[in-house]
C-alpha cells in the first residue's frame, strides 16, 4: 500500500471555509425566477413544478455528488461494487412506480425503446465518452451548473454530438431493429412488475453481496442520494407523464442554434417526426427535457454559489479539455443512437421494464472499459 505523502509544511493545510458567493448566487437566482415566470405564462403551474424539480435534481446531484461515470470507473478499475448496487437500488425504487402506473394506463408511459443495432453502437460510444469527459448525461449537466471548467467544454460538444446523432438516427434505425421489447410483456401487470423487480433486485444484490465479500460498505451518502433521487424521479413521472430524461433537451438546443445560423434542420428526417418537430417549433421551455435541464443548471449553480464552489473551479490541463470535447461528442451521438443516456435509457429504461435499458447498461459498461484505457493518453488517471 502506498503511504500518503507527509505534510512537511509547518502550517496546517489551508482549508477554504464555505463562503457564499453573493453576486453569482443572486444572478442565478434572478435568472431562475425570471425563467420560472416565463414558464408560468406559457405552460402553467405544471411547467413551473417541472422546472423546480429540475432545480431540485441539480442541487441534489451536486449536493450528494451523485454520479455514474466515476462509480462505474471505480467498479471496473478497483472492483468497488457498492456504487453500482446503489444505482440498482435507485432503479428498483423507480420501477415500483413506473411499471404499474404505465401498465394501468394512469396517464403515464414508461421509457420503452427499440432493441436495435443503433442501441448497441450508441451505448458503447456513450460509455467511452463518459469516461473521457469524466461525467455522463447528468454528471455533465450538474457539473456544468456547478461551474466546472471541464464541463464548460464538454457540454457544447455534447450538444453538437447530440445534434449530429439526430441526423444519423433515421439511417441507423435501418441497420436492424427488433422493435420495443418489454420484459414479461403479456404476462399481466403484477407478474410483469414482479419479474422486473426480481431482475433489478438480483442485479443489485449480486453487486452488493460481492462488495460485502470484499469488505466494502455501502456509503450512506450514496444510499441517501439514491432514495432522494428516486423520490424526485417519481414526482417527475407523475407530473410529466414520462420518466425523467436529459439528452433530448441537448438535441433540441443544438437544433435551435443550428437553425438560427441557417442550417436547414427541419429538412432532416428526425426533425420531421411528430414529436421532435413539435419541440423544434415551440419554445425550449415547452419541452420537458429541455425545461428540466435548464432547471438543473440553475439548481446546481445556486447550490455551488451558496457553498462557495464556483470560485474553487479551475481549468484542467489542455489535454483533458480535448478529452472532454471528444467525450462530449461521443456521448451526444451515442445518446441519440441509443435512445438516451444513463438517466433516460439506463435508469428509466430498466425501471420501465424495457430490455433496451439492460442492453444499454452492458454496452455502456463495455464502452467505459475502453474509455478508461484511453484516459491516460489524455493525462487522466485510470
Amino acid at each position, binding site marked *: 500500500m502506498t503511504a500518503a505523502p507527509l505534510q512537511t509544511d509547518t502550517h496546517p493545510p489551508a482549508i477554504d471555509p464555505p463562503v457564499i458567493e453573493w453576486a453569482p448566487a443572486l*444572478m442565478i437566482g434572478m*435568472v431562475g425566477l425570471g*425563467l420560472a415566470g*416565463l414558464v408560468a405564462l*406559457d*405552460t*402553467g403551474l405544471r*411547467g413551473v413544478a*417541472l422546472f423546480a424539480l429540475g432545480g431540485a435534481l441539480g442541487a441534489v446531484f451536486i449536493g450528494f455528488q451523485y454520479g455514474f461515470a466515476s462509480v462505474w470507473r471505480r467498479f471496473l478499475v478497483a472492483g468497488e461494487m457498492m456504487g453500482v448496487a446503489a444505482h440498482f437500488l435507485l432503479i428498483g425504487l423507480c420501477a415500483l412506480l413506473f411499471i404499474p402506473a404505465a401498465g394501468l394506463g394512469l396517464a403515464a408511459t414508461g*421509457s*420503452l*425503446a*427499440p432493441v436495435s443495432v443503433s442501441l448497441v453502437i450508441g451505448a458503447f460510444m456513450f460509455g467511452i465518452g463518459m469516461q473521457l469527459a469524466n461525467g455522463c448525461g447528468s454528471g455533465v449537466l450538474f457539473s456544468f451548473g456547478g*461551474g*466546472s*471548467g471541464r464541463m*464548460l467544454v464538454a457540454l457544447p460538444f455534447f450538444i453538437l454530438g447530440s445534434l449530429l446523432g*439526430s441526423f444519423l*438516427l*433515421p439511417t441507423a*434505425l*435501418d441497420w*436492424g*431493429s*427488433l*422493435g420495443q421489447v418489454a420484459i414479461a410483456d403479456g404476462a399481466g401487470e403484477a407478474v410483469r412488475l414482479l419479474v422486473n423487480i426480481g431482475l433489478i433486485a438480483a442485479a443489485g444484490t449480486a453487486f452488493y453481496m460481492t462488495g460485502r465479500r470484499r469488505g466494502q460498505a455501502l456509503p450512506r451518502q450514496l444510499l441517501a442520494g439514491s432514495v432522494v433521487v428516486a423520490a424526485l424521479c417519481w414526482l417527475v413521472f407523475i407530473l*410529466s*407523464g*414520462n*420518466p425523467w*430524461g436529459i439528452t*433530448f433537451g441537448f438535441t433540441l438546443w443544438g437544433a*435551435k*442554434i443550428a437553425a438560427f445560423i441557417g442550417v436547414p434542420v427541419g429538412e432532416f428526417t428526425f426533425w420531421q*417526426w*411528430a*414529436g*421532435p418537430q*413539435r*419541440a423544434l*417549433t*415551440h*419554445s*425550449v*421551455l*415547452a*419541452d*420537458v*427535457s429541455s425545461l428540466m435541464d*435548464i432547471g438543473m*443548471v440553475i439548481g446546481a*449553480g445556486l447550490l455551488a454559489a451558496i457553498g462557495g464552489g*464556483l470560485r474553487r*473551479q*479551475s*481549468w484542467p490541463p489542455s489535454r483533458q479539455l480535448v478529452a472532454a470535447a471528444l467525450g462530449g461528442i461521443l456521448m451526444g451521438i451515442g445518446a*441519440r443512437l441509443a*435512445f*438516451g443516456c444513463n438517466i433516460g435509457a439506463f435508469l*428509466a429504461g430498466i425501471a420501465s421494464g424495457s430490455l433496451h435499458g439492460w442492453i444499454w447498461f452492458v454496452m455502456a459498461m463495455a464502452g467505459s472499459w475502453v474509455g478508461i484505457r484511453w484516459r491516460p493518453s489524455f493525462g487522466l488517471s485510470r
Partner: protein
Amino acid sequence: MTRLTPKVIYVLVLLAGCVVVVGDHLISRSLSGPGAPGDLGGACAPCGAPCTDAGG
C-alpha cells in the same frame, strides 16, 4: 484585465444562455402544457423515433 477563469466564462455563458432562452421563447409558438417528443405520432422511443419493422 479579468482573467478568464471558469467562473467568469460560466457567468457569461449563463447570461448569454438566458438571453437566448428568452429570445427563443418570445419568437416560438406556445404550448398549453410541457410536452415530450415521445407523446406524439405513435413514437417507439422517448425521442420520438417511429417504430420500424423487425429486422428492417
